[in-house]
């Protein structure tokens, strides 16, 4: 009865990557490079973790050892209501709408404060309150510091004018509650991803964000919101494409990986669209069930045969209960699957951005090499024409350019190295993330089914009692 599995599992042991860069790049002899579409393919690189500081863990929900049935404990809880009044007294002169309406409490617990070399984490558990704009501000700072050197900075959640207006107006209804919850959950995921990154965790801006009781109001968060980031990345991509000199990719690894991420991007977007459709249809089903339940109840009332009338009323009750189940399931569909996929669509964009940065770096290096070449030619000319003072100037410029070229090469090698590490880490995290989320999602499906069995088993004797 069951479909046979056509499923590729990861390799039994992870291969350690040779990090030395050489012109041809190490070719990963992996079974799974030719199946980029398998979302569960294990990452084939193991990054050597040289930082002992990685011991600092911010504990939150699901730990790597999967413990089913425990819901993730909420790291971030929203605070609205009175906080929103004093925000409002400030008028904002930013181009962007100041999100005065919501602030969030972050609960942080550090697992081993003694082990950490960061003296800042003295306390085991503490909380801070942050505004939504603070999160955006943090992200924009991190992006400006780390993106151009090849680090995959997790993108911040999107702003939503429509949703925000509703909350500001103080509308205490279903949709505004949903909006706040959606935002809370998105911020939590964003923050978790950021602090899981070993380099970003050490960043002073991040530490300040986690620790200080008061943060200065973030200015011009418009600069690098997610949408802004996307625009920046796209502009960079366009610039790269417009370059007449195509980068000679001597490293097959990069070529492969870029293709891999292209494919992944397409796949994830498709999936995301399908899951959004699923959420919608399940909500529709729940509505239709509720309306059928009412109709069946009325039919039961109308029925003049007593036992049948009772059974029809019971049927109406069962359908109503199941409708509630379907609603909850739709939420699970959304929070587990849809949001996960949405996050990864944005993350892949950030990854692609980082590859583009590498190309820019390469281009810079090439440009300085070309300049050096020109200057050398000019120098030769000057020597031939015997112009001693201009010659010295030329020699100085050449010296400068030689250093620039060397720096450019170093930068390029560095960014390539960083990206390899980052991609390795990213892929590992991705697989873990998907695995744990899909399992949580399946658990919700399972729970729904178990409940449905209970409801129908309770109904069955009622149906049998009709005589």
């Amino acid at each position, binding site marked *: 009865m069951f479909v046979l599995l056509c499923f590729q599992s990861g390799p039994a042991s992870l291969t350690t990557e040779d990090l030395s860069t050489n012109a041809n790049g190490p070719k990963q002899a992996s079974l799974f490079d030719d199946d980029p579409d398998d979302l569960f393919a294990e990452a084939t690189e193991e990054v050597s973790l040289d930082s002992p500081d990685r011991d600092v863990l911010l504990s939150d929900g699901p730990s790597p050892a999967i413990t089913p049935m425990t819901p993730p404990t909420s790291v971030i809880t929203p605070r609205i209501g009175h906080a929103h009044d004093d925000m409002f007294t400030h008028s904002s002169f930013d181009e962007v709408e100041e999100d005065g309406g919501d602030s969030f409490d972050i609960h942080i617990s550090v697992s081993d404060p003694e082990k950490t070399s960061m003296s800042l984490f003295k306390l085991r558990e503490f909380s801070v309150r942050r505004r939504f704009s603070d999160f955006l501000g943090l992200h924009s700072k991190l992006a400006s510091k780390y993106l151009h050197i090849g680090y995959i900075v997790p993108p911040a959640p999107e702003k939503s004018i429509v949703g925000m207006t509703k909350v500001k107006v103080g509308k205490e209804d279903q949709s505004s509650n949903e909006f706040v919850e959606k935002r809370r959950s998105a911020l939590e995921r964003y923050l978790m991803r950021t602090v899981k990154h070993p380099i970003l965790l050490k960043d002073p801006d991040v530490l300040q964000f986690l620790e200080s009781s008061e943060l200065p109001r973030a200015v011009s968060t418009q600069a690098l919101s997610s949408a802004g980031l996307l625009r920046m990345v796209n502009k960079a991509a366009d610039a790269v494409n417009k370059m007449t000199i195509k980068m000679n990719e001597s490293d097959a690894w990069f070529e492969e990986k870029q293709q891999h991420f292209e494919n992944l991007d397409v796949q994830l977007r498709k999936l995301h669209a399908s899951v959004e459709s699923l959420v919608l249809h399940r909500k529709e089903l729940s509505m239709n069930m509720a309306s*059928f339940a009412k109709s069946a109840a009325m039919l039961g009332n109308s029925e003049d045969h007593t036992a049948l009338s009772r059974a029809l009323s019971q049927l109406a009750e069962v359908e109503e209960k199941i409708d509630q189940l379907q609603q909850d399931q739709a939420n699970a569909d959304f929070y587990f699957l849809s949001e996960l996929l949405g996050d990864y669509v944005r993350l892949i964009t950030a990854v692609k951005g980082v590859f583009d940065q590498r190309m820019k770096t390469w281009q810079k290096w090439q440009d300085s090499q070309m300049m050096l070449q020109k200057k050398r030619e000019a120098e030769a000319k000057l020597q031939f024409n015997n112009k001693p003072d201009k010659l010295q100037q030329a020699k100085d410029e050449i010296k400068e350019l030689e250093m620039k070229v060397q720096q450019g090469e170093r930068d390029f090698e560095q960014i390539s190295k960083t990206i390899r590490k980052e991609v390795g880490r990213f892929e590992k995290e991705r697989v873990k993330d998907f695995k744990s989320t899909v399992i949580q999602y399946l658990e919700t499906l399972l729970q729904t089914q178990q409940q449905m069995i209970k409801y129908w088993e309770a109904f069955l004797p009622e149906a049998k009692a009709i005589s």
Partner: protein
Amino acid sequence: PIRSVSVDLNNDASLLIDIPDALCERDKVKFTVHTKTTLSSFQKPEFSVPRQHEDFIWLHDTLVETEDYAGLIIPPAPPKPDFEGPREKMHKLGEGEATMTKEEYTKMKQELEAEYLAVFKKTVQVHEIFLQRLSSHPILNKDRNFQIFLEYDQDLSVRRKNAKEMFGGFFKNMVKSADEVLISGVKEVDDFFEQEKTFLLDYYSKIKDSTAKAEKMTRSHKNIADDYIRISATLNITMSFVSLQKVEGRVASDQELKLTELLRYYMRDIQAAKDLLYRRARALADYENSNKALDKARLKSKDIPQAEEHQQQCLQKFDKLSESGKKELTSFKGRRVVAFRKNLIEMAELEIKHAKVRSSIQLYYICFIMCTNELQYAWGICKILCEQI
């Protein structure tokens, strides 16, 4: 084939009817009607004829138009085979073929073919039940046209055309437009019929509403099943999601067979019962008018014998209808209760079964993902779980 809607009708060995076979040609369905009989009124003990949907409608309409059957509930006509839904989807699928992967296309096509098949099965069943209702009715099964329908080995289309010209569908149209008003307007003399009238009018509107809502539910289920197909196609993980979808899709069609079909069928059956009430109400109105005419005649001392005879005829007709109607409506109630019971039980059992299958699949998948590095271990768990279904 499961008889989803009515109780077992094909019990009497003297006349056994079924539709063992049907052919679908460009949305025109050709049914093979197979009869086995011990009755001498038929020429052969066993025979088959090809019939179209229009032939069934002809038979139904002639029965409705027959005066002698005015006191009977005429089994509702089977609805026209409707392949519009899957056909439209197939068309859309063809248009969108370029935008989807080969895998997705294949899966959706398979699903659509299953839908087609389900519609096909449903229409065969509904036509079969119509004939079996007739064969199990002590008066209707002796109808001459019914026999012709079963036996006549030529094309019925000529007869159909003649019938249309003869009756012109007059009675049917009248019933459609006036019944509610007339039934509710007539002053009822009999408690039984008073109650039946109230009950049937109310029940009809409720069941009509429930049928529509159940159909909407079924459509939502189908949409969800389609979403799972797309998800599984994109994931290339052919396992759980596909199985889930297969089960989800199957649920959509099983639920449709049980609940929606049940409601739909009885909605039509109740309409047929209402038609009976209407005819009786008509007869009562005629009787009351004949009384008035008689009084008038007596007053004028003119044409009294004719008026008396007319009044007698009306009374007889009315009494006959009432007597027959009472029997029909009582047995109708019994039939309805039994059918609901059977279908509700079967539906609940199917829901339980499917929920169990789905949870096993989900558990199995959870274990599998958790143990992706240890295939053998995962496979072992999966096997154990499968055996528990």
